[in-house]
């Protein structure tokens, strides 16, 4: 299983033709305490770049964009029910949604872990 990252601070874990997507610890740190999360319903078709989920802190609302195109096969109701579930484990239990990839070549342009670390370091 490989993990990729986007410039928008999402992680994408690939298992066969299904991508699990969440936000990185860096994103979480920037947002602060989460108070509201909305995830997409299964069955929705998304195109890369679409607003797929919403994450809100006390201060601001942000969108989580679909980093790849495909059909949503699951949204994580546990984080919609309690946004604190993202904070404890953003890279695991705090996943947002799963997409069945329609175009696996879209993964090619994404960063690996080292590239993402360098990208985040460059922001500070």
């Amino acid at each position: 299983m490989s993990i990729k990252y986007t410039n928008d601070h999402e992680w994408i874990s690939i298992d066969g033709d299904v991508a699990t997507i969440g936000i990185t610890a860096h994103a979480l740190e920037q947002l602060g305490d989460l108070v509201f999360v909305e995830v997409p319903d299964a069955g929705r078709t998304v195109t890369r770049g679409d607003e797929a989920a919403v994450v809100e802190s006390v201060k601001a609302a942000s969108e989580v964009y679909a980093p790849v195109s495909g059909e949503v096969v699951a949204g994580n109701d546990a984080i919609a029910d309690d946004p604190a579930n993202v904070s404890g484990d953003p890279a695991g239990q705090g996943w947002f949604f799963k997409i069945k990839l329609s175009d696996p070549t879209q993964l090619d342009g994404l960063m690996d872990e080292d590239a993402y670390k360098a990208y985040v370091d460059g922001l500070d």
Partner: protein
Amino acid sequence: MTDQDQTEQHLLTTPLDSLHRALGAKMVPFAGYAMPVQYPAGILKEHLHTRTGASLFDVSHMGQALLMGENAVAAFETLVPGDYAGMAEGKTRYTVLLTDQGTIMDDLMATRIPGGLYVVVNAACKAQDFAHIEAGTRGQADLQILTDRALLALQGPKAGDVLAALAAETADMKFMNFREVTIGGTDCFVTRSGYTGEDGFEISVPAAQAEAFAKLLLDQPDVEPAGLGARDSLRLEAGLCLYGHDITTDTTPIEADIKWVINKRRRAEGGFPGADVILAQLENGTDRVRVGILPEGRAPAREGVEIQDLDGHPIGTVTSGGFGPSVGGPVAMGYVKTPFGADGTGVSLIVRGKPLAAKIVKMPFTRKSYKT
């Protein structure tokens, strides 16, 4: 996700800048200053601590000035609708600077002191406010801008005990009382007021002693630092207006439902900018009114969200909104057409294109606990 990093170049700093950084604050640009939006505890904890303990806020970016001279009070009254002539020395009153159209240029606190007034205005408006006050009182009073003083807010149910332990003479101060007090060798202007809905104080201290004074307060039991993020969620729950959002040069005090700033004597006498407009609105009402809005679900409705009636017609706009940590859910305020302003009226909030159910409610969202 968008990255919120912004340049900190060219920002002014307050006298507590190095203390904020030492405390691990996240600094953000606000009104031209680098300000702490939160400390490591985070906005939720800082907010909740302010409602149970005492929090220290740096509000040194705000503008402080003295307006001095025997005609200072009368001259000041030509700019605001508050009754300052009828107020005793040592008392503070909230008021607004008005345009000639009766709309709000800024909101501010003004205190009667021997020989004049001590005024505190919003950071983002201060240059414009002071120019306006100076021009409007020229020849009648002398405006002295206090650029060498910091301003700290100590807020929360334990603020009274904390300050009384350091300065016993603050113990009997009531809400909106002012006193000049020496605390730990520091000359302080202490006002029992704030912007959180809690009991507390705003304390003006010389800039050079600000850091030592802030550390003295932070060393007291129950006192924790809190940033601008918590300050905003606290004032929102308390139903207090944020200038530039809930009140602007497009709104009058009557529309903003702060008609109590037009004090009785001034209602009778007029003599403030836009008095014709404001007195007519007091008599006849307004087309729209500021209200509290309680979304029924969990999604916050933020500034700019359209408010619709239950038939889908636009009736207003949210001017402040977010998550209320003490309420445990979203809270908002905004303007609606007056017929929809009654407590309990059902409305829809259009958030990300979808209507969310909400109700018009009375503010504050949390009980105020001032010392009266």
